[in-house]
Each structure stands twice: as structure tokens, then as C-alpha cells.
């Protein structure tokens, strides 16, 4: 049994019209075993719900509402809890040291590091096309990451 956490962009693309880009995600889904677990971070639901409330297009709102409903129906939602606390702190310190990133730029990565620590706490592979996760997986081998759009 394998565990995966879909990042927001991947969960959104899964609901999109089929393109050359997201076809690769469908192919991955076709290869999953029934026993595999697919999850999303609570952060993804926060972001999608913000998108829903922020949209002024009724048709678009309905599409996002439907996407949120699918996510809640089929995927396990992972809240933030105490298990991530130390993982997050360690990962942030490590990232800062290894990259020498300045304080201001570092702040933009906090949520990404939080999601990465959720994946580590769940012993799951994070699925994302965001470049920061590739860098994080290089400096912290315990963090597993895959880009299903490649």
C-alpha cells in the first residue's frame, strides 16, 4: 500500500478538461492499486474554498464547489497536528541553512514546507509540480516527492 498527498495544482488538474498535460495524472491514477491511499492537505481545501468565495462567476463557483465535493468524497483530508510540528521546524531550519535563502524569500515557502512536513508525518509521497519540493527532497531524503506531470 502506498500513500500519496496531492498538492492543490494536481488536485485541480484532475478535475480539468483532458489535455496533454493532465493526461499523465490520469495515467498515474490508472496505475494505482485500490489499497493505495490518496490524501490532500487541509491547506488545499483552504485554497480551493478561498477560490470559491473569491470568484464572481457563478458557473465557475459551481465547478469549484463540485471539485471540493469530490476531494472531500474520495480523498483523505489531512489536518495539521502536533506530529508535523518538529518536522516542519527541522525542515525549515535545514532549508534555510542549505540554500542560504534570505528571510523575506523564506517566508514565501512556509506553507510549502508545512505541506512537505505533512507528507513526512504521513510517510506519504507528495505529488506536486512546484520546484521547491524537488529542492526539499534533495536536502531531506526522508521527504518523498514526485511530479506526475513529468
Amino acid at each position, binding site marked *: 500500500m502506498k500513500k500519496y498527498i496531492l498538492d*492543490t*495544482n494536481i488536485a*485541480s*488538474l*484532475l*478535475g*480539468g*478538461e*483532458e*489535455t496533454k498535460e493532465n493526461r499523465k*495524472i*490520469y495515467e498515474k*491514477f*490508472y496505475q*494505482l*492499486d*485500490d489499497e*493505495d491511499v*490518496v490524501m490532500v492537505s487541509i*491547506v*488545499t481545501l*483552504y*485554497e*480551493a474554498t*478561498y*477560490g470559491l468565495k*473569491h*470568484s464572481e462567476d457563478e458557473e*465557475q463557483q459551481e*465547478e*469549484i464547489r*463540485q*471539485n471540493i465535493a*469530490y476531494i472531500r468524497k*474520495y480523498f483523505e483530508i489531512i489536518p495539521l497536528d502536533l506530529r508535523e510540528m518538529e518536522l516542519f521546524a527541522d525542515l525549515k531550519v535545514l532549508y534555510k541553512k542549505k540554500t542560504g535563502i534570505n*528571510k523575506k524569500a523564506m*517566508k*514565501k515557502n*512556509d*506553507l*510549502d514546507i508545512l505541506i512537505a512536513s505533512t507528507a513526512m508525518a504521513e510517510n506519504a509521497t507528495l505529488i506536486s509540480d512546484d520546484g521547491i519540493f524537488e529542492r526539499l527532497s534533495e536536502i531531506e531524503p526522508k521527504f518523498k516527492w514526485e511530479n506526475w506531470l513529468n
Partner: protein
Amino acid sequence: MQVALNLGTINITNQEVAKFIQNRSIDEIKSMITDFLNNQVNIISNKPTKKKGKWAEVADEMRGTMSSDTVEYLKTCSQEIRSGFELRDYK
């Protein structure tokens, strides 16, 4: 319409089998080949076909429920939240 199947030249190197075939009529050989082919086709069709998995069903159900514009819009919303989120450093 008559359908023909040309199997080309079949070389039988096993002496016993060659002798066995030699002693058969053309019709008997045709019948044996037909039986053999039928048997192969049956074996293939008897193989269990893989059932569509749970996650394939989910992917198919979700596919196309949002327009490309909405997917792009959600991406910008996500980026807005990620870049706007910060853990404040108090002095």
C-alpha cells in the same frame, strides 16, 4: 466469401512428429492446426481481464468537471495564499 490463412512453411525438426504428420491426410492436418489455433485463442480469451481500479474510476469521474480557465484560476488562488502566508518574526 472464402477466407484464406497462409501460415507459410512449417519446418518440423522433431523426427517423431514429422513421421506422425507424414502419415496423416491433408484434411487431418488442417483439422489439427484448426484445433491448435482454437485452443490458443481460447486460452487468451480465458485470461481474466483486469477490472478497472477504484482510482481509475475516481479519475474518470472527476475528469472534465472544471474548465481550463477554472483550473488556472485555482492555481493563481493557491499561489496567492502560498506567497501571502508568512510566519511572523516578532522582535
